[in-house]
Protein backbone atom coordinates (compact mmCIF):
# COMPACT_ATOMS: atom_id res chain seq x y z
CA UNK A 1 0.00 0.00 0.00
CA UNK A 2 1.32 3.37 -0.92
CA UNK A 3 1.57 5.86 1.92
CA UNK A 4 -0.88 8.69 1.62
CA UNK A 5 0.07 11.98 0.07
CA UNK A 6 -0.06 13.87 3.39
CA UNK A 7 2.05 11.28 5.07
CA UNK A 8 4.72 11.60 2.40
CA UNK A 9 4.55 15.38 2.52
CA UNK A 10 4.96 15.28 6.27
CA UNK A 11 7.92 12.94 6.01
CA UNK A 12 9.48 15.05 3.31
CA UNK A 13 9.09 18.22 5.37
CA UNK A 14 10.64 16.57 8.40
CA UNK A 15 13.59 15.37 6.36
CA UNK A 16 14.26 18.89 5.20
CA UNK A 17 14.58 20.22 8.72
CA UNK A 18 18.30 19.52 9.28
CA UNK A 19 19.21 21.72 6.30
CA UNK A 20 16.48 24.19 7.23
CA UNK A 21 17.73 24.52 10.80
CA UNK A 22 21.27 25.02 9.53
CA UNK A 23 20.14 27.83 7.21
CA UNK A 24 18.22 29.41 10.08
CA UNK A 25 21.36 29.34 12.22
CA UNK A 26 23.23 31.06 9.39
CA UNK A 27 20.76 33.93 9.57
CA UNK A 28 20.88 34.09 13.37
CA UNK A 29 24.65 34.16 13.08
CA UNK A 30 24.70 37.56 11.43
CA UNK A 31 21.95 39.38 13.30
CA UNK A 32 23.38 42.46 15.00
CA UNK A 33 23.13 41.64 18.70
CA UNK A 34 24.78 44.91 19.63
CA UNK A 35 26.94 43.27 22.25
CA UNK A 36 30.37 44.93 22.09
CA UNK A 37 32.88 42.77 20.29
CA UNK A 38 30.47 39.89 19.82
CA UNK A 39 30.18 40.19 16.06
CA UNK A 40 33.92 39.59 15.68
CA UNK A 41 33.92 36.39 17.70
CA UNK A 42 30.40 35.14 17.06
CA UNK A 43 30.40 31.32 17.18
CA UNK A 44 30.15 29.52 13.85
CA UNK A 45 26.77 27.88 14.35
CA UNK A 46 26.79 26.40 10.86
CA UNK A 47 30.01 24.53 11.62
CA UNK A 48 28.35 22.91 14.62
CA UNK A 49 25.30 22.06 12.53
CA UNK A 50 27.32 20.54 9.68
CA UNK A 51 29.35 18.51 12.17
CA UNK A 52 26.27 17.31 14.01
CA UNK A 53 24.20 16.27 11.01
CA UNK A 54 27.19 14.68 9.32
CA UNK A 55 27.56 12.57 12.44
CA UNK A 56 23.96 11.55 12.98
CA UNK A 57 21.99 12.02 9.78
CA UNK A 58 24.32 12.40 6.80
CA UNK A 59 21.59 11.34 4.40
CA UNK A 60 19.54 14.35 5.52
CA UNK A 61 22.55 16.66 5.15
CA UNK A 62 23.89 15.58 1.75
CA UNK A 63 27.15 16.92 0.47
CA UNK A 64 25.58 19.37 -1.97
CA UNK A 65 23.57 20.87 0.91
CA UNK A 66 26.84 21.34 2.78
CA UNK A 67 28.21 23.09 -0.29
CA UNK A 68 25.17 25.37 -0.46
CA UNK A 69 25.39 26.18 3.25
CA UNK A 70 29.07 27.04 2.83
CA UNK A 71 28.45 29.29 -0.17
CA UNK A 72 25.64 31.06 1.66
CA UNK A 73 27.81 31.55 4.73
CA UNK A 74 30.55 33.06 2.56
CA UNK A 75 28.07 35.26 0.73
CA UNK A 76 26.36 36.62 3.79
CA UNK A 77 29.36 37.05 6.02
CA UNK A 78 31.33 38.92 3.37
CA UNK A 79 34.42 36.73 3.43
CA UNK A 80 35.97 35.65 0.12
CA UNK A 81 33.76 33.16 -1.65
CA UNK A 82 34.75 29.53 -1.19
CA UNK A 83 36.56 29.72 2.13
CA UNK A 84 33.83 28.47 4.45
CA UNK A 85 32.59 26.25 1.63
CA UNK A 86 35.91 24.40 1.60
CA UNK A 87 36.08 24.28 5.39
CA UNK A 88 32.55 22.91 5.73
CA UNK A 89 33.20 20.31 3.01
CA UNK A 90 36.40 19.26 4.75
CA UNK A 91 34.64 18.92 8.10
CA UNK A 92 31.80 17.00 6.49
CA UNK A 93 34.20 14.68 4.68
CA UNK A 94 36.23 14.04 7.80
CA UNK A 95 33.22 13.32 9.97
CA UNK A 96 31.47 11.05 7.46
CA UNK A 97 34.70 9.22 6.78
CA UNK A 98 35.38 8.77 10.51
CA UNK A 99 31.80 8.25 11.57
CA UNK A 100 32.56 5.16 13.56
CA UNK A 101 34.52 7.35 15.91
CA UNK A 102 31.74 9.90 16.34
CA UNK A 103 28.50 7.89 16.46
CA UNK A 104 27.18 6.42 19.68
CA UNK A 105 29.93 7.76 21.91
CA UNK A 106 29.47 9.51 25.21
CA UNK A 107 28.85 13.20 24.99
CA UNK A 108 32.27 14.15 26.30
CA UNK A 109 33.93 12.13 23.53
CA UNK A 110 31.67 13.73 20.92
CA UNK A 111 32.57 17.15 22.27
CA UNK A 112 36.25 16.29 22.25
CA UNK A 113 35.91 15.08 18.68
CA UNK A 114 34.32 18.36 17.73
CA UNK A 115 37.09 20.25 19.52
CA UNK A 116 39.69 18.52 17.33
CA UNK A 117 37.70 18.86 14.09
CA UNK A 118 36.83 22.46 14.92
CA UNK A 119 40.45 23.37 15.62
CA UNK A 120 41.50 21.87 12.30
CA UNK A 121 38.66 23.75 10.58
CA UNK A 122 39.68 27.07 12.12
CA UNK A 123 43.31 26.49 11.19
CA UNK A 124 42.24 25.64 7.66
CA UNK A 125 40.14 28.78 7.32
CA UNK A 126 43.03 30.86 8.66
CA UNK A 127 45.40 29.34 6.10
CA UNK A 128 42.91 29.83 3.25
CA UNK A 129 42.19 33.40 4.31
CA UNK A 130 45.89 34.25 4.59
CA UNK A 131 46.57 32.64 1.22
CA UNK A 132 43.69 34.54 -0.37
CA UNK A 133 44.92 37.89 0.90
CA UNK A 134 48.57 36.89 0.58
CA UNK A 135 49.16 38.27 4.05
CA UNK A 136 49.11 36.76 7.51
CA UNK A 137 45.67 37.50 8.93
CA UNK A 138 45.49 38.34 12.62
CA UNK A 139 44.44 35.06 14.28
CA UNK A 140 43.41 36.47 17.67
CA UNK A 141 39.70 36.95 16.96
CA UNK A 142 39.64 33.53 15.32
CA UNK A 143 40.92 31.92 18.50
CA UNK A 144 38.12 33.47 20.53
CA UNK A 145 35.65 32.50 17.84
CA UNK A 146 36.85 28.91 18.14
CA UNK A 147 36.49 28.90 21.92
CA UNK A 148 32.99 30.37 21.73
CA UNK A 149 31.98 27.85 19.06
CA UNK A 150 33.26 25.10 21.32
CA UNK A 151 31.28 26.56 24.20
CA UNK A 152 28.06 26.69 22.20
CA UNK A 153 28.45 23.12 20.94
CA UNK A 154 26.73 21.35 23.87
CA UNK A 155 23.73 23.68 23.70
CA UNK A 156 23.19 23.27 19.96
CA UNK A 157 24.00 19.57 19.93
CA UNK A 158 21.47 19.02 22.71
CA UNK A 159 18.87 20.98 20.75
CA UNK A 160 19.58 18.97 17.61
CA UNK A 161 19.38 15.66 19.48
CA UNK A 162 16.02 16.63 20.97
CA UNK A 163 14.88 17.65 17.51
CA UNK A 164 15.94 14.28 16.11
CA UNK A 165 14.06 12.43 18.83
CA UNK A 166 10.96 14.51 18.32
CA UNK A 167 10.75 14.77 14.54
CA UNK A 168 13.16 12.45 12.78
CA UNK A 169 12.87 9.23 14.77
CA UNK A 170 10.06 7.87 12.63
CA UNK A 171 12.28 7.42 9.57
Amino acid at each position, binding site marked *: MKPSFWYRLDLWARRLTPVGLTLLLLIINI*IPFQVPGFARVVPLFALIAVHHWATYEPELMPV*YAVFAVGVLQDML*SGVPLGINTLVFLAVYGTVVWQRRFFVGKSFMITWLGFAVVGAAAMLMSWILMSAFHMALVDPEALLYQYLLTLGFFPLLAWGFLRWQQAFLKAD
Partner: protein
Amino acid sequence: MNEKLRPVHRVAAPIRSLQRFAYLGLVVAAFGLMMLGKADVVVVERFRAQVTDTVAPLLDAVSRPVATVNDVIAEARELVNLRAENAQLRKERDRLLQWEAAGRRLEAENQALQRLLHFIPHEARGFISARVIADTGGAFAHSLVLNAGADDEVRRGQAVVSGDGLVGRVVSVGARSSRILLLTDLNSRIPVVTEQSRVRAVLAGNNTGRPVLDHLPPNDTVTVGERVVTSGHGGVFPPGLPVGVIVSIGDNGTVVQPLVATDRLEYVRVVDFGLDQGVLQPQGATAKD
Protein backbone atom coordinates in the same frame (compact mmCIF):
# COMPACT_ATOMS: atom_id res chain seq x y z
CA MET B 1 20.05 2.34 19.77
CA ASN B 2 19.03 0.02 16.96
CA GLU B 3 16.96 2.71 15.41
CA LYS B 4 19.99 4.93 15.26
CA LEU B 5 22.35 2.36 13.86
CA ARG B 6 20.18 1.09 11.04
CA PRO B 7 20.41 4.17 8.82
CA VAL B 8 24.17 4.18 9.31
CA HIS B 9 24.57 0.98 7.36
CA ARG B 10 21.93 1.93 4.88
CA VAL B 11 23.74 5.11 4.04
CA ALA B 12 27.35 4.03 4.27
CA ALA B 13 27.45 2.35 0.88
CA PRO B 14 26.11 5.19 -1.29
CA ILE B 15 28.35 7.66 0.51
CA ARG B 16 31.40 5.61 -0.29
CA SER B 17 30.65 5.13 -3.94
CA LEU B 18 28.49 7.85 -5.43
CA GLN B 19 28.91 10.70 -2.98
CA ARG B 20 32.66 10.47 -3.03
CA PHE B 21 32.52 11.53 -6.66
CA ALA B 22 30.14 14.39 -5.91
CA TYR B 23 32.25 15.33 -2.91
CA LEU B 24 35.45 15.70 -4.90
CA GLY B 25 33.58 17.62 -7.56
CA LEU B 26 32.23 20.07 -5.01
CA VAL B 27 35.64 20.55 -3.39
CA VAL B 28 37.01 21.45 -6.81
CA ALA B 29 34.03 23.75 -7.36
CA ALA B 30 34.72 25.51 -4.05
CA PHE B 31 38.33 26.06 -5.09
CA GLY B 32 37.01 27.36 -8.38
CA LEU B 33 34.81 29.85 -6.53
CA MET B 34 37.82 31.07 -4.59
CA MET B 35 39.78 31.58 -7.79
CA LEU B 36 36.81 33.36 -9.33
CA GLY B 37 36.66 35.65 -6.30
CA LYS B 38 40.30 36.49 -6.82
CA ALA B 39 40.03 36.95 -10.58
CA ASP B 40 36.69 38.62 -11.11
CA VAL B 41 35.69 40.69 -8.12
CA VAL B 42 32.82 42.43 -9.89
CA VAL B 43 30.91 39.27 -10.75
CA VAL B 44 31.31 37.85 -7.26
CA GLU B 45 30.24 41.11 -5.62
CA ARG B 46 27.16 41.30 -7.82
CA PHE B 47 26.29 37.73 -6.93
CA ARG B 48 26.86 38.51 -3.27
CA ALA B 49 24.66 41.59 -3.47
CA GLN B 50 21.88 39.54 -5.03
CA VAL B 51 22.05 36.82 -2.40
CA THR B 52 22.13 39.39 0.39
CA ASP B 53 19.22 41.16 -1.23
CA THR B 54 17.18 37.97 -1.22
CA VAL B 55 17.80 37.38 2.47
CA ALA B 56 17.46 41.07 3.43
CA PRO B 57 13.71 41.07 4.23
CA LEU B 58 14.21 38.10 6.53
CA LEU B 59 17.19 39.76 8.22
CA ASP B 60 15.20 42.94 8.56
CA ALA B 61 12.35 41.11 10.27
CA VAL B 62 14.53 39.02 12.56
CA SER B 63 16.79 41.86 13.64
CA ARG B 64 13.90 44.05 14.79
CA PRO B 65 12.91 42.11 17.92
CA VAL B 66 16.58 41.80 18.85
CA ALA B 67 16.95 45.55 18.53
CA THR B 68 13.81 46.08 20.59
CA VAL B 69 15.09 43.86 23.40
CA ASN B 70 18.37 45.74 23.32
CA ASP B 71 16.54 49.05 23.50
CA VAL B 72 14.54 47.90 26.51
CA ILE B 73 17.69 46.76 28.30
CA ALA B 74 19.41 50.04 27.49
CA GLU B 75 16.39 51.97 28.75
CA ALA B 76 16.34 50.09 32.03
CA ARG B 77 20.02 50.77 32.47
CA GLU B 78 19.45 54.45 31.75
CA LEU B 79 16.72 54.63 34.38
CA VAL B 80 19.12 53.32 36.97
CA ASN B 81 21.77 55.85 36.07
CA LEU B 82 19.40 58.75 35.60
CA ARG B 83 20.70 61.00 38.36
CA ALA B 84 24.36 60.54 37.65
CA GLU B 85 23.76 60.99 33.96
CA ASN B 86 21.78 64.13 34.54
CA ALA B 87 24.61 65.71 36.50
CA GLN B 88 27.09 64.69 33.84
CA LEU B 89 24.92 66.06 31.07
CA ARG B 90 24.61 69.40 32.87
CA LYS B 91 28.38 69.64 33.05
CA GLU B 92 28.68 68.64 29.42
CA ARG B 93 26.05 71.19 28.39
CA ASP B 94 28.00 74.00 30.06
CA ARG B 95 31.10 72.92 28.22
CA LEU B 96 29.25 72.64 24.91
CA LEU B 97 27.75 76.10 25.30
CA GLN B 98 31.27 77.47 25.40
CA TRP B 99 32.07 75.43 22.32
CA GLU B 100 28.97 76.74 20.61
CA ALA B 101 30.12 80.31 21.13
CA ALA B 102 33.55 79.40 19.80
CA GLY B 103 31.95 77.53 16.89
CA ARG B 104 29.76 80.44 15.89
CA ARG B 105 32.71 82.80 15.94
CA LEU B 106 34.79 80.39 13.82
CA GLU B 107 31.93 79.79 11.39
CA ALA B 108 31.55 83.50 10.78
CA GLU B 109 35.26 83.88 10.37
CA ASN B 110 35.39 80.85 8.07
CA GLN B 111 32.62 82.19 5.88
CA ALA B 112 34.30 85.55 5.63
CA LEU B 113 37.58 83.91 4.64
CA GLN B 114 35.88 81.58 2.17
CA ARG B 115 34.23 84.54 0.47
CA LEU B 116 37.62 86.18 0.37
CA LEU B 117 39.15 83.16 -1.37
CA HIS B 118 36.16 82.21 -3.55
CA PHE B 119 36.38 78.77 -1.95
CA ILE B 120 34.00 76.08 -3.26
CA PRO B 121 32.92 73.92 -0.34
CA HIS B 122 32.00 70.24 -0.56
CA GLU B 123 28.41 69.93 0.43
CA ALA B 124 26.42 66.83 1.02
CA ARG B 125 23.56 66.48 -1.42
CA GLY B 126 21.54 64.21 0.73
CA PHE B 127 21.39 61.58 3.43
CA ILE B 128 19.84 58.17 3.36
CA SER B 129 19.12 56.84 6.83
CA ALA B 130 19.23 53.08 7.06
CA ARG B 131 19.00 50.37 9.65
CA VAL B 132 21.81 47.88 10.27
CA ILE B 133 20.23 44.48 9.62
CA ALA B 134 23.32 42.29 9.78
CA ASP B 135 26.70 42.52 11.41
CA THR B 136 28.65 39.98 9.47
CA GLY B 137 32.01 38.49 8.96
CA GLY B 138 33.11 37.02 12.25
CA ALA B 139 36.85 37.08 12.68
CA PHE B 140 37.71 37.59 9.03
CA ALA B 141 35.69 40.35 7.47
CA HIS B 142 34.24 43.43 9.04
CA SER B 143 31.10 44.45 7.23
CA LEU B 144 27.52 45.48 7.89
CA VAL B 145 24.39 45.03 5.83
CA LEU B 146 21.91 47.92 5.61
CA ASN B 147 18.24 47.75 4.69
CA ALA B 148 18.61 50.37 1.96
CA GLY B 149 19.81 49.71 -1.55
CA ALA B 150 19.75 50.96 -5.11
CA ASP B 151 16.01 51.62 -4.82
CA ASP B 152 16.81 54.14 -2.10
CA GLU B 153 19.56 55.77 -4.17
CA VAL B 154 22.43 54.09 -2.35
CA ARG B 155 25.46 53.88 -4.63
CA ARG B 156 28.71 52.03 -4.37
CA GLY B 157 31.52 54.08 -2.87
CA GLN B 158 29.35 56.36 -0.76
CA ALA B 159 30.50 57.19 2.74
CA VAL B 160 28.56 55.84 5.70
CA VAL B 161 28.57 57.87 8.90
CA SER B 162 26.98 57.74 12.30
CA GLY B 163 26.72 60.56 14.79
CA ASP B 164 30.26 59.89 15.97
CA GLY B 165 32.06 59.79 12.66
CA LEU B 166 32.94 57.65 9.68
CA VAL B 167 31.72 54.04 9.74
CA GLY B 168 32.94 52.83 6.36
CA ARG B 169 31.87 52.83 2.77
CA VAL B 170 29.38 51.06 0.56
CA VAL B 171 31.00 48.16 -1.30
CA SER B 172 28.09 46.43 -2.90
CA VAL B 173 24.51 47.43 -3.53
CA GLY B 174 21.46 45.30 -4.15
CA ALA B 175 17.98 46.59 -4.86
CA ARG B 176 16.97 46.84 -1.21
CA SER B 177 20.13 46.12 0.74
CA SER B 178 23.73 47.21 0.69
CA ARG B 179 26.95 46.04 2.24
CA ILE B 180 29.24 48.38 4.15
CA LEU B 181 32.94 47.70 4.43
CA LEU B 182 33.94 48.89 7.89
CA LEU B 183 37.13 50.88 8.18
CA THR B 184 38.59 48.09 10.33
CA ASP B 185 38.31 45.49 7.54
CA LEU B 186 41.47 44.12 5.99
CA ASN B 187 40.47 45.55 2.62
CA SER B 188 39.67 49.04 3.83
CA ARG B 189 42.01 51.84 2.78
CA ILE B 190 40.96 55.38 3.56
CA PRO B 191 42.99 58.48 2.74
CA VAL B 192 43.20 60.51 5.93
CA VAL B 193 44.99 63.50 7.35
CA THR B 194 45.86 64.26 10.96
CA GLU B 195 43.87 67.17 12.28
CA GLN B 196 46.59 69.36 13.79
CA SER B 197 49.83 68.38 12.11
CA ARG B 198 48.13 67.94 8.68
CA VAL B 199 50.14 64.82 7.86
CA ARG B 200 48.61 62.74 5.09
CA ALA B 201 48.39 58.99 5.41
CA VAL B 202 46.28 56.00 4.50
CA LEU B 203 44.24 54.40 7.24
CA ALA B 204 44.60 50.67 6.62
CA GLY B 205 42.24 48.19 8.25
CA ASN B 206 43.77 44.99 9.59
CA ASN B 207 40.76 42.99 10.85
CA THR B 208 41.38 44.09 14.41
CA GLY B 209 39.42 46.82 16.12
CA ARG B 210 42.25 49.28 15.60
CA PRO B 211 43.45 50.14 12.10
CA VAL B 212 46.90 51.64 11.48
CA LEU B 213 48.22 54.60 9.52
CA ASP B 214 50.12 53.52 6.43
CA HIS B 215 52.32 55.53 4.10
CA LEU B 216 53.19 58.09 6.71
CA PRO B 217 55.83 60.42 5.29
CA PRO B 218 59.09 59.54 7.07
CA ASN B 219 59.93 63.01 8.31
CA ASP B 220 56.57 64.12 9.57
CA THR B 221 55.67 63.57 13.17
CA VAL B 222 52.23 62.80 14.49
CA THR B 223 51.35 62.72 18.17
CA VAL B 224 49.29 60.38 20.31
CA GLY B 225 45.86 61.82 20.99
CA GLU B 226 45.62 63.62 17.68
CA ARG B 227 42.40 63.23 15.73
CA VAL B 228 42.39 61.75 12.26
CA VAL B 229 39.91 62.95 9.62
CA THR B 230 39.33 62.01 5.98
CA SER B 231 41.54 63.93 3.60
CA GLY B 232 39.33 63.71 0.54
CA HIS B 233 42.16 62.39 -1.61
CA GLY B 234 41.29 59.69 -4.08
CA GLY B 235 37.88 61.19 -4.66
CA VAL B 236 35.99 58.69 -2.50
CA PHE B 237 35.23 60.64 0.63
CA PRO B 238 34.74 64.32 1.22
CA PRO B 239 37.43 65.88 3.41
CA GLY B 240 36.99 66.46 7.11
CA LEU B 241 34.87 63.52 8.24
CA PRO B 242 36.06 62.51 11.72
CA VAL B 243 37.55 59.02 11.68
CA GLY B 244 39.49 58.26 14.85
CA VAL B 245 42.13 59.17 17.40
CA ILE B 246 45.78 58.12 17.37
CA VAL B 247 46.23 55.95 20.45
CA SER B 248 49.76 54.65 20.14
CA ILE B 249 52.86 54.96 18.04
CA GLY B 250 55.24 52.05 18.21
CA ASP B 251 56.33 48.76 16.73
CA ASN B 252 52.79 48.01 15.60
CA GLY B 253 52.77 51.21 13.61
CA THR B 254 50.64 54.23 14.28
CA VAL B 255 47.47 52.78 15.74
CA VAL B 256 44.15 54.57 15.44
CA GLN B 257 41.08 53.99 17.59
CA PRO B 258 37.97 54.60 15.43
CA LEU B 259 35.44 57.03 16.88
CA VAL B 260 32.50 54.82 15.98
CA ALA B 261 31.76 51.72 18.04
CA THR B 262 30.45 49.63 15.17
CA ASP B 263 28.98 46.88 17.30
CA ARG B 264 26.52 49.33 18.85
CA LEU B 265 25.22 50.75 15.61
CA GLU B 266 21.55 50.52 14.91
CA TYR B 267 20.99 53.32 12.43
CA VAL B 268 23.53 54.92 10.10
CA ARG B 269 23.45 57.54 7.40
CA VAL B 270 24.66 56.93 3.88
CA VAL B 271 25.92 60.26 2.65
CA ASP B 272 25.66 61.33 -0.94
CA PHE B 273 28.34 63.95 -1.37
CA GLY B 274 27.83 64.10 -5.07
CA LEU B 275 31.40 62.98 -5.62
CA ASP B 276 32.08 60.71 -8.51
CA GLN B 277 33.39 57.29 -7.70
CA GLY B 278 36.72 58.53 -8.94
CA VAL B 279 39.54 56.07 -8.69
CA LEU B 280 37.61 53.62 -6.58
CA GLN B 281 38.45 50.06 -7.52
CA PRO B 282 36.34 47.07 -6.62
CA GLN B 283 38.59 45.73 -3.88
CA GLY B 284 39.00 49.14 -2.36
CA ALA B 285 42.77 49.04 -2.01
CA THR B 286 43.10 52.07 -4.19
CA ALA B 287 43.81 55.12 -2.20
CA LYS B 288 47.21 56.12 -3.34
CA ASP B 289 48.51 58.95 -1.35
